[in-house]
């Protein structure tokens, strides 16, 4: 029978590196999925997964055993993803002044004119368009939306994971949905 996370975490805290290996093997795929949705890049997602476990290992003694280990890992992964996105933006700002303050809304800079909806559907470009829209969301909007829509987390858990009030998480999700609708509804309706 598979041991629960809390039992394995207790073993890992007692210095059993084999137990930590179990946690890595158990949670890596979920973390990769979250990190990819957050960053939009495979290599970045790989880096986030690795960094998440390194941080988790170092902070294992601080983990509250009453909490869910998976949620705790998600929180670390979300923060790692946000750190990476910020670092990426900072580097881009060094070479692209358009990314500075006063730059147009990223939503406006999405590829246009769009290909015809049937072609989009056939070629999978809708998926790419979705990724482009997700990339234009604010950090909080994207994180909250990814956790709610793709990971199926309830709003209260998202608030806890991100360290914000549930209401704040909820409004971030609303804003994300509004932006997605604005960008995708014309395509979807015409399809």
């Amino acid at each position: 029978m598979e041991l629960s996370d809390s039992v394995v975490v207790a073993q890992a805290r007692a210095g059993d590196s084999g137990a930590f290996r179990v946690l890595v093997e158990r949670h890596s795929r979920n973390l990769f999925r979250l990190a990819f949705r957050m960053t939009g890049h495979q290599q970045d997602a790989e880096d986030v997964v690795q960094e998440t476990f390194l941080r988790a290992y170092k902070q294992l003694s601080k983990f509250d055993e009453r909490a869910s280990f998976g949620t705790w890992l998600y929180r670390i992964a979300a923060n790692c993803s946000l750190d990476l996105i910020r670092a990426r933006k900072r580097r881009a700002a060094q070479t692209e002044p358009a990314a500075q303050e006063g730059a147009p809304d990223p939503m406006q800079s999405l590829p246009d004119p769009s290909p015809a909806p049937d072609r989009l559907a056939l070629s999978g470009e809708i998926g790419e368009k979705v990724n482009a829209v997700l990339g234009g969301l604010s950090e909080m909007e994207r994180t909250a939306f990814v956790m709610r829509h793709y990971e199926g987390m309830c709003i209260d858990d998202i608030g806890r994971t991100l360290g914000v009030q549930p209401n704040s998480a909820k409004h971030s999700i609303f804003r994300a949905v509004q932006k997605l609708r604005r960008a995708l509804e014309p395509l979807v309706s015409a399809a």
Partner: protein
Amino acid sequence: MMNHLTEEQYVLYYYGEGDDSPAVRAHLDACEACRAEYANLQRVLNVVDSAPVPERDARYGAQVWNRLKLRDKPRGWPWFFPGRHWAAAALVATLIVAAFLAGRYYPKGQTGAQSAKAGQVRERILLVAVGDHLERSQTVLLELVNAQPGQSLDVASERERAGDLVAENRLYRQTALHTGDTGVASVLGDLEPVLLEIAHEPDRITPEEVESLRRRIEGDGILFKVRVVGSTVRRREATAPPPPSRNSL
């Protein structure tokens, strides 16, 4: 009958959240306009699911574990500068400094305004680089200061990073001296011997050596100085003009 549904109600209902789901359901059954609106939302959110995610197979967790090599490197290192990039980072630092100094001393063929603007841009690039350098140095120092007291410590990762930081530190300090930035030069001068000491540690150090290193870092106040100068540099970086756009004349 309740008023037409709000967008927030649609979203909460779609995700099965909110307390008024039965009322929303009843309204949707009765109101054609809201039903159509909700169908639009459903279509968009269903399409969002089509965004592809690369698959990772069942062996992925084991691959991650192998990459982590926790038994050998339990201290970890920041993802934004993984080991394989350190040599490249030192090279980039050299190029930045060389470009900065070349531009500073040989502004041939430029008007006064162009030259001043180019100088500001170079200064910004250098500030960004120095800011990053101080952040990475701070990370190394913090990891050592925050080490568990009374235990031996694997510092192979910190040692390797400190070795690379020393090379960069020298370049930036010399540049700061050239440009008259004495505050930055002074802190980089204080930082250098500490980085050197870390770079010359063995892979694993005893609890006494950990304590000695911690006392050295804390006694010199180097961490505090790096933090202060780092944030000053970041502030200057934020107010310095960005590089010109590609289309500018």
